[in-house]
Protein backbone atom coordinates (compact mmCIF):
# COMPACT_ATOMS: atom_id res chain seq x y z
CA UNK A 1 0.00 0.00 0.00
CA UNK A 2 2.84 2.35 0.89
CA UNK A 3 4.58 1.70 -2.43
CA UNK A 4 1.27 2.32 -4.23
CA UNK A 5 0.85 5.66 -2.43
CA UNK A 6 4.46 6.61 -3.19
CA UNK A 7 3.89 5.70 -6.85
CA UNK A 8 0.74 7.86 -6.97
CA UNK A 9 2.39 10.91 -5.41
CA UNK A 10 5.39 10.46 -7.72
CA UNK A 11 3.04 10.36 -10.70
CA UNK A 12 1.19 13.50 -9.53
CA UNK A 13 4.51 15.23 -9.01
CA UNK A 14 5.56 14.25 -12.57
CA UNK A 15 2.39 15.77 -14.04
CA UNK A 16 2.93 18.88 -11.92
CA UNK A 17 6.49 19.15 -13.31
CA UNK A 18 5.15 18.79 -16.87
CA UNK A 19 3.30 22.11 -16.49
CA UNK A 20 6.60 23.93 -15.77
CA UNK A 21 5.19 25.51 -12.57
CA UNK A 22 7.92 28.15 -12.15
CA UNK A 23 7.17 29.62 -15.60
CA UNK A 24 3.41 29.46 -14.87
CA UNK A 25 3.96 31.37 -11.62
CA UNK A 26 5.94 34.05 -13.44
CA UNK A 27 3.21 34.41 -16.09
CA UNK A 28 0.50 34.56 -13.41
CA UNK A 29 2.42 37.29 -11.61
CA UNK A 30 2.67 39.28 -14.87
CA UNK A 31 -1.07 38.79 -15.54
CA UNK A 32 -1.92 39.88 -11.98
CA UNK A 33 0.11 43.07 -12.32
CA UNK A 34 -1.41 43.85 -15.75
CA UNK A 35 -4.91 43.30 -14.29
CA UNK A 36 -4.27 45.58 -11.32
CA UNK A 37 -2.89 48.34 -13.53
CA UNK A 38 -5.53 48.09 -16.29
CA UNK A 39 -8.74 47.66 -14.26
CA UNK A 40 -10.37 50.78 -12.81
CA UNK A 41 -12.18 48.68 -10.19
CA UNK A 42 -11.05 45.27 -8.95
CA UNK A 43 -13.59 42.51 -9.63
CA UNK A 44 -12.37 39.58 -7.53
CA UNK A 45 -14.32 36.96 -9.54
CA UNK A 46 -12.81 38.18 -12.81
CA UNK A 47 -9.36 38.33 -11.21
CA UNK A 48 -9.63 34.72 -10.01
CA UNK A 49 -10.95 33.66 -13.44
CA UNK A 50 -8.00 35.39 -15.19
CA UNK A 51 -5.52 33.60 -12.91
CA UNK A 52 -7.27 30.23 -13.34
CA UNK A 53 -7.45 30.62 -17.15
CA UNK A 54 -3.82 31.74 -17.30
CA UNK A 55 -2.62 28.89 -15.09
CA UNK A 56 -4.52 26.26 -17.09
CA UNK A 57 -3.51 27.58 -20.51
CA UNK A 58 0.17 28.19 -19.72
CA UNK A 59 0.44 24.90 -17.79
CA UNK A 60 -1.10 23.08 -20.77
CA UNK A 61 1.32 24.72 -23.17
CA UNK A 62 4.20 23.74 -20.86
CA UNK A 63 3.10 20.10 -21.06
CA UNK A 64 2.75 20.35 -24.86
CA UNK A 65 6.26 21.82 -25.02
CA UNK A 66 7.57 18.84 -23.03
CA UNK A 67 5.81 16.52 -25.50
CA UNK A 68 7.18 18.27 -28.62
CA UNK A 69 10.74 18.49 -27.25
CA UNK A 70 10.81 14.94 -25.85
CA UNK A 71 13.59 13.78 -28.20
CA UNK A 72 15.79 16.85 -27.70
CA UNK A 73 15.20 16.77 -23.93
CA UNK A 74 16.89 13.35 -23.71
CA UNK A 75 20.12 14.69 -25.17
CA UNK A 76 20.70 17.61 -22.77
CA UNK A 77 21.73 17.25 -19.13
CA UNK A 78 19.32 19.80 -17.61
CA UNK A 79 16.24 18.72 -19.60
CA UNK A 80 16.96 14.99 -19.35
CA UNK A 81 15.51 15.10 -15.81
CA UNK A 82 12.06 16.09 -17.15
CA UNK A 83 9.20 13.58 -16.66
CA UNK A 84 9.04 12.25 -20.24
CA UNK A 85 12.79 11.46 -20.66
CA UNK A 86 12.74 9.95 -17.15
CA UNK A 87 9.87 7.65 -18.22
CA UNK A 88 7.59 8.95 -15.45
CA UNK A 89 4.92 10.08 -17.96
CA UNK A 90 4.36 8.56 -21.40
CA UNK A 91 4.43 10.99 -24.39
CA UNK A 92 0.79 10.24 -25.25
CA UNK A 93 -0.34 10.95 -21.69
CA UNK A 94 1.62 14.21 -21.71
CA UNK A 95 -0.01 15.21 -25.02
CA UNK A 96 -3.55 14.47 -23.75
CA UNK A 97 -2.83 16.18 -20.42
CA UNK A 98 -1.47 19.28 -22.19
CA UNK A 99 -4.38 19.52 -24.63
CA UNK A 100 -6.91 19.05 -21.81
CA UNK A 101 -5.36 21.77 -19.65
CA UNK A 102 -5.04 24.15 -22.59
CA UNK A 103 -8.66 23.45 -23.66
CA UNK A 104 -9.90 24.10 -20.12
CA UNK A 105 -7.98 27.40 -20.07
CA UNK A 106 -9.57 28.44 -23.39
CA UNK A 107 -13.05 27.57 -22.07
CA UNK A 108 -12.55 29.68 -18.92
CA UNK A 109 -11.20 32.56 -21.07
CA UNK A 110 -14.20 32.29 -23.41
CA UNK A 111 -16.59 32.42 -20.45
CA UNK A 112 -14.84 35.59 -19.26
CA UNK A 113 -15.09 37.16 -22.68
CA UNK A 114 -18.65 36.41 -23.76
CA UNK A 115 -20.58 36.00 -20.53
CA UNK A 116 -22.28 32.96 -19.01
CA UNK A 117 -25.35 32.43 -21.28
CA UNK A 118 -23.41 32.48 -24.56
CA UNK A 119 -20.48 30.52 -23.15
CA UNK A 120 -22.93 27.86 -21.87
CA UNK A 121 -24.29 27.60 -25.41
CA UNK A 122 -20.87 27.30 -27.03
CA UNK A 123 -19.48 24.88 -24.44
CA UNK A 124 -22.57 22.63 -24.61
CA UNK A 125 -22.90 22.55 -28.39
CA UNK A 126 -19.11 22.37 -28.84
CA UNK A 127 -18.74 19.35 -26.57
CA UNK A 128 -21.75 17.71 -28.21
CA UNK A 129 -20.28 18.39 -31.66
CA UNK A 130 -16.97 16.81 -30.58
CA UNK A 131 -18.84 13.67 -29.45
CA UNK A 132 -20.75 13.50 -32.77
CA UNK A 133 -17.46 13.87 -34.69
CA UNK A 134 -15.89 11.07 -32.63
CA UNK A 135 -19.00 8.97 -33.32
CA UNK A 136 -18.68 9.52 -37.09
CA UNK A 137 -15.04 8.33 -37.00
CA UNK A 138 -16.13 5.30 -34.96
CA UNK A 139 -18.89 4.51 -37.49
CA UNK A 140 -16.33 4.59 -40.33
CA UNK A 141 -14.07 2.27 -38.30
CA UNK A 142 -16.95 -0.12 -37.53
CA UNK A 143 -18.13 -0.24 -41.16
CA UNK A 144 -14.60 -0.97 -42.39
CA UNK A 145 -14.14 -3.68 -39.75
CA UNK A 146 -17.55 -5.20 -40.50
CA UNK A 147 -16.73 -5.25 -44.23
CA UNK A 148 -13.67 -7.42 -43.53
CA UNK A 149 -15.69 -9.87 -41.41
CA UNK A 150 -14.62 -8.43 -38.06
CA UNK A 151 -17.99 -9.01 -36.42
CA UNK A 152 -20.13 -12.14 -36.25
CA UNK A 153 -22.81 -13.68 -34.03
CA UNK A 154 -20.39 -14.49 -31.18
CA UNK A 155 -18.33 -11.34 -31.48
CA UNK A 156 -20.26 -8.08 -31.63
CA UNK A 157 -19.38 -6.36 -28.31
CA UNK A 158 -17.80 -3.33 -30.01
CA UNK A 159 -20.94 -2.70 -32.07
CA UNK A 160 -23.11 -3.04 -28.97
CA UNK A 161 -20.91 -0.62 -27.00
CA UNK A 162 -20.94 1.86 -29.86
CA UNK A 163 -24.74 1.65 -29.98
CA UNK A 164 -24.88 2.61 -26.28
CA UNK A 165 -22.50 5.54 -26.88
CA UNK A 166 -24.36 6.79 -29.95
CA UNK A 167 -27.79 6.46 -28.34
CA UNK A 168 -26.57 8.42 -25.31
CA UNK A 169 -25.24 11.17 -27.61
CA UNK A 170 -28.68 11.09 -29.28
CA UNK A 171 -30.36 11.59 -25.87
CA UNK A 172 -28.11 14.60 -25.18
CA UNK A 173 -29.11 16.12 -28.53
CA UNK A 174 -32.81 15.62 -27.68
CA UNK A 175 -32.20 17.92 -24.67
CA UNK A 176 -29.85 20.38 -26.42
CA UNK A 177 -32.06 20.97 -29.49
CA UNK A 178 -35.22 22.23 -27.75
CA UNK A 179 -33.26 23.93 -24.95
CA UNK A 180 -31.00 26.07 -27.16
CA UNK A 181 -32.78 26.24 -30.52
CA UNK A 182 -36.51 26.16 -29.78
CA UNK A 183 -37.30 27.52 -26.31
Amino acid sequence: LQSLQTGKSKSLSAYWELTKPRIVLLLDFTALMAFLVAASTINIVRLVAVIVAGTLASGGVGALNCYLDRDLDRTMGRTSRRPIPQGEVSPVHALVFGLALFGAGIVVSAMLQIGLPLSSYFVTTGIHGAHVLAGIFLIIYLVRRAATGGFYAERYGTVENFNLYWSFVNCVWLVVFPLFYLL
Partner: protein
Amino acid sequence: VRKMNKTTPVAVWSYLVVATLLEWTLAKNFLSLTTIYTNIVIAVLAASQILSVAMVFLRLKYEPRGIVGLAAASLFFAVLAVVLALGSIGH
Protein backbone atom coordinates in the same frame (compact mmCIF):
# COMPACT_ATOMS: atom_id res chain seq x y z
CA VAL B 1 -33.59 -11.69 -21.98
CA ARG B 2 -36.51 -10.47 -24.11
CA LYS B 3 -35.89 -10.11 -27.84
CA MET B 4 -36.54 -6.88 -29.69
CA ASN B 5 -39.08 -6.84 -32.50
CA LYS B 6 -37.39 -6.02 -35.83
CA THR B 7 -39.76 -3.14 -36.58
CA THR B 8 -39.34 -1.47 -33.16
CA PRO B 9 -36.13 0.52 -33.97
CA VAL B 10 -37.73 1.81 -37.21
CA ALA B 11 -40.88 2.81 -35.30
CA VAL B 12 -38.86 4.67 -32.66
CA TRP B 13 -36.78 6.43 -35.31
CA SER B 14 -39.99 7.49 -37.12
CA TYR B 15 -41.42 8.80 -33.86
CA LEU B 16 -38.23 10.83 -33.27
CA VAL B 17 -38.56 12.45 -36.70
CA VAL B 18 -42.29 13.22 -36.28
CA ALA B 19 -41.86 14.58 -32.74
CA THR B 20 -38.92 16.78 -33.80
CA LEU B 21 -40.97 18.24 -36.67
CA LEU B 22 -43.88 18.81 -34.27
CA GLU B 23 -41.58 20.57 -31.76
CA TRP B 24 -40.20 22.79 -34.50
CA THR B 25 -43.70 23.66 -35.79
CA LEU B 26 -44.91 24.48 -32.27
CA ALA B 27 -41.86 26.65 -31.57
CA LYS B 28 -42.23 28.50 -34.87
CA ASN B 29 -45.97 29.17 -34.72
CA PHE B 30 -47.12 29.12 -31.10
CA LEU B 31 -44.18 30.10 -28.89
CA SER B 32 -44.78 33.40 -27.09
CA LEU B 33 -43.69 35.20 -23.95
CA THR B 34 -47.27 35.41 -22.65
CA THR B 35 -47.92 31.69 -22.27
CA ILE B 36 -45.85 28.76 -21.09
CA TYR B 37 -48.13 26.01 -22.45
CA THR B 38 -46.16 25.64 -25.69
CA ASN B 39 -42.93 25.31 -23.69
CA ILE B 40 -44.53 22.57 -21.59
CA VAL B 41 -45.75 20.65 -24.66
CA ILE B 42 -42.27 20.88 -26.27
CA ALA B 43 -40.62 19.74 -23.02
CA VAL B 44 -43.03 16.77 -22.76
CA LEU B 45 -42.35 15.83 -26.40
CA ALA B 46 -38.58 16.00 -25.79
CA ALA B 47 -38.95 13.89 -22.63
CA SER B 48 -40.99 11.28 -24.55
CA GLN B 49 -38.29 11.15 -27.25
CA ILE B 50 -35.56 10.60 -24.66
CA LEU B 51 -37.66 7.93 -22.96
CA SER B 52 -38.21 6.06 -26.22
CA VAL B 53 -34.47 6.15 -27.08
CA ALA B 54 -33.54 5.03 -23.56
CA MET B 55 -36.08 2.20 -23.54
CA VAL B 56 -35.30 0.80 -27.00
CA PHE B 57 -31.84 1.89 -28.20
CA LEU B 58 -30.27 1.93 -24.72
CA ARG B 59 -32.07 -1.40 -24.11
CA LEU B 60 -33.66 -0.40 -20.77
CA LYS B 61 -36.91 -2.14 -21.77
CA TYR B 62 -35.03 -5.41 -22.03
CA GLU B 63 -32.93 -5.07 -18.86
CA PRO B 64 -33.66 -6.34 -15.30
CA ARG B 65 -35.62 -3.96 -13.02
CA GLY B 66 -32.56 -3.07 -10.92
CA ILE B 67 -30.80 -1.57 -13.94
CA VAL B 68 -33.94 0.38 -14.89
CA GLY B 69 -34.15 1.79 -11.32
CA LEU B 70 -30.49 2.80 -11.45
CA ALA B 71 -31.03 4.58 -14.79
CA ALA B 72 -34.14 6.36 -13.44
CA ALA B 73 -32.20 7.59 -10.39
CA SER B 74 -29.38 8.87 -12.65
CA LEU B 75 -31.94 10.64 -14.85
CA PHE B 76 -33.46 12.34 -11.81
CA PHE B 77 -30.10 13.82 -10.79
CA ALA B 78 -29.28 14.78 -14.40
CA VAL B 79 -32.59 16.69 -14.72
CA LEU B 80 -31.99 18.30 -11.32
CA ALA B 81 -28.53 19.46 -12.48
CA VAL B 82 -29.95 20.91 -15.73
CA VAL B 83 -32.76 22.74 -13.89
CA LEU B 84 -30.35 24.22 -11.33
CA ALA B 85 -27.92 25.23 -14.09
CA LEU B 86 -30.74 26.99 -15.99
CA GLY B 87 -31.40 29.18 -12.94
CA SER B 88 -27.75 30.28 -12.88
CA ILE B 89 -27.60 30.94 -16.62
CA GLY B 90 -30.74 33.08 -16.53
CA HIS B 91 -29.15 35.49 -14.10
